[in-house]
């Protein structure tokens, strides 16, 4: 799922050596991006999902007051003041937004019926088998998607950073061994590696994140290694060494600040594909427990309701349609954005 970016980090505009003097917002890079309608569409889609994730508690006030799940109690709310969640003047607005209790990620159940319930004024997008409210699951699922994406990227960047720095700075045998390890990871489908790791560690969302991160660091380490190899030949690095700086200090203070920027951009664009891998694992039943707000699980509910009752083939369309469309548009947004940014970054094109 991760493809190797086709760019040489030392050549693109974000690199300090090639930066435009007039600042980012007036730079040629940003102008090129702004003129591309597909890029703008992608950026708007991603922004929309970020807003949904941030304002998940506010967007589900109606559901929270209808179902009164544990989340409401854990926020310290009673029967009459659930709507305070949507009032920025109340403390609970910020509490729910910044640090919601874990129970808010449990999808409220309209019933315990195994048959999906159709869309209604109470169930905006219907309920899947088990009575799980689809709207609630998708909104909070957006939040858990970003949660997974950001944590995995964070970990993969640190791990990739350490491995890439060691390989790039030391070179020699260490470089050879580490890069063969990267080759081995590249030569396996990332989903299969993740499945093996989750099977052995046990099925949980945390282990899904560990499994994806165990694969995701590899491309970053390779990019950083190339960067460091190029930068360590520059004069200012020799200068630092001449002044007596040792290995780790040279890497951390002089080399990394000059190469980390583009890597951060590339890594943040991988959030889309990481969320997708996590959803795929959940879909297979290897991720979050049943009832946790998670897109992959929402669409796996649909597997039991492919056929409608006799004579009504599309009776349960909402069970597969809504989770599906939410995932597809999310991936589309990241793809459009990522494509445009990579295009802008790569001066050769």
């Amino acid at each position, binding site marked *: 799922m991760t493809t190797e970016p086709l760019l040489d980090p030392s050549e693109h505009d974000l690199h300090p050596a090639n930066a435009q003097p007039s600042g980012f917002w007036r730079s040629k890079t940003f102008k090129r991006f702004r003129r591309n309608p597909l890029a703008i569409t992608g950026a708007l889609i991603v922004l929309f999902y970020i807003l949904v994730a941030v304002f998940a508690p506010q967007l589900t006030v109606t559901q929270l007051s209808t179902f009164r799940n544990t989340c409401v109690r854990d926020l310290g709310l009673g029967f009459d003041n659930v709507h305070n969640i949507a009032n920025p003047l109340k403390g609970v607005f910020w509490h729910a937004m910044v640090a919601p209790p874990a129970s808010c990620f449990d999808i409220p159940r309209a019933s315990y019926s195994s048959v999906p319930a159709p869309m209604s004024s109470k169930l905006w997008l219907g309920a899947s088998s088990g009575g799980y409210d689809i709207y609630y699951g998708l909104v909070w699922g957006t939040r858990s998607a970003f949660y997974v994406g950001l944590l995995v990227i964070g970990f993969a960047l640190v791990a990739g950073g350490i491995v890439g720095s060691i390989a790039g700075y030391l070179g020699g045998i260490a470089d050879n061994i580490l890069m063969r390890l990267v080759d081995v990871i590249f030569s*396996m489908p990332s989903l299969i590696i993740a499945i093996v790791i989750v099977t052995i560690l046990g099925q949980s969302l945390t282990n899904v994140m560990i499994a994806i991160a165990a694969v995701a660091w590899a491309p970053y380490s390779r990019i950083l290694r190339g960067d460091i190899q190029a930068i360590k030949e520059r004069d200012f690095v020799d200068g630092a060494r001449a002044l007596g700086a040792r290995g780790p200090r040279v890497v951390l203070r002089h080399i990394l600040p000059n190469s980390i920027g583009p890597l951060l951009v590339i890594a943040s664009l991988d959030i889309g594909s990481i969320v997708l891998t996590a959803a795929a694992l959940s879909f297979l039943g*290897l991720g979050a427990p049943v009832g946790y707000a998670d897109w992959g699980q929402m669409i796996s509910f649909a597997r039991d309701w492919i056929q409608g009752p006799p004579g009504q*083939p599309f009776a349960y369309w909402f069970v597969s349609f809504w989770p599906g469309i939410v995932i*597809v548009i999310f991936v589309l947004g990241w793809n459009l954005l990522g494509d445009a940014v990579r295009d802008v970054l790569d001066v050769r094109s």
Partner: protein
Amino acid sequence: MFTFIIRRLLFLPVVFVGVTLGIVLLMQLLSPTQRAASYVTSPQQLANVEAIIKRYHLADPWYVQYWTWLREAAKGNFGYSKVAKMPVLKAIGERFPSTVELALAALLPIVGVGIWFGTAAALNRDKLIDQVTRVMSIVGWSLPTFVLGIWLLVIFYGALNWFTPGQITGKHAIELANEIANGTFHRYTHFLTIDSLLNGRFDIFLDDLKHLVLPVITLAAVSSAQIMRVMRSSLLDALGQDYVRTARSKGLAEVVVNNKHARKNALIPVLTLSGFTIIGLLGGVVITETIFNYPGMGSFIANAATQLDYSSVLAGAVFIAIIVVLANLVVDVLYGLVDPRIRYN
């Protein structure tokens, strides 16, 4: 070229050792009792776990275990599969051909559709076919296998009932099982499409093909979209090169310039991509086979993973690794044949 192939072959053991060592090291996180399933050939043997642990050094350091594991693997012993209720190697042997069939069937439309639309789009830049191709590639690229597969099933199975999940319909499956037991249906190759033709059973052949339609579309959507994009942009790139202008100015026919001069060069990045495509396909089969209930390696690994059948998951991963490396070797050799500039030194 020859030395290049040798060097790629030398990379094979690196990947093999990497994957197997990784797996044996990961297995250290399990208890010796859980590891035992990867060494026995029948569930009865597990009754005396202590003896198994002792015999295969499961409580010894990892390097001793790695050696025993390699030795057993060389003998073809990958343990007993809880899910398939038979030795893992036998279970994989039964499912492996189905996956190869599915992957090869998907490869045809991926390459065909990808290259054809990519070429048509580049040669008719900004015309209707170009716009259609660009929309198709953006949409296809954004359709995750598990969403597309479910949607296709809802429409073409749930509503229209044109295609059913599985590998063959129930009626044929029972017939087939009886005939295999009676010895009237010979399993020459274990590839159902080929075997049914060799046995002269066109009904089973057509039935099998029909069951491949939806999984192939699901698998091919993302990959063919990627090939389309790369083909289009690299052909546009090639059409702007000096050698294409030279060929035109020599008075060569447009078809010759496009096909012989531009397209052949434009195919090189597509070939590079196809290595990744194969890796992606083998990851994609896990989801696709699970959705369509197709009895291949992918659904085997997924089922084994959900039921904590360690020995099957681990052996499945080793086999996938071997296929990936071999497939990449083929791609690399093709790469050398297409691009004479590459002399692999």
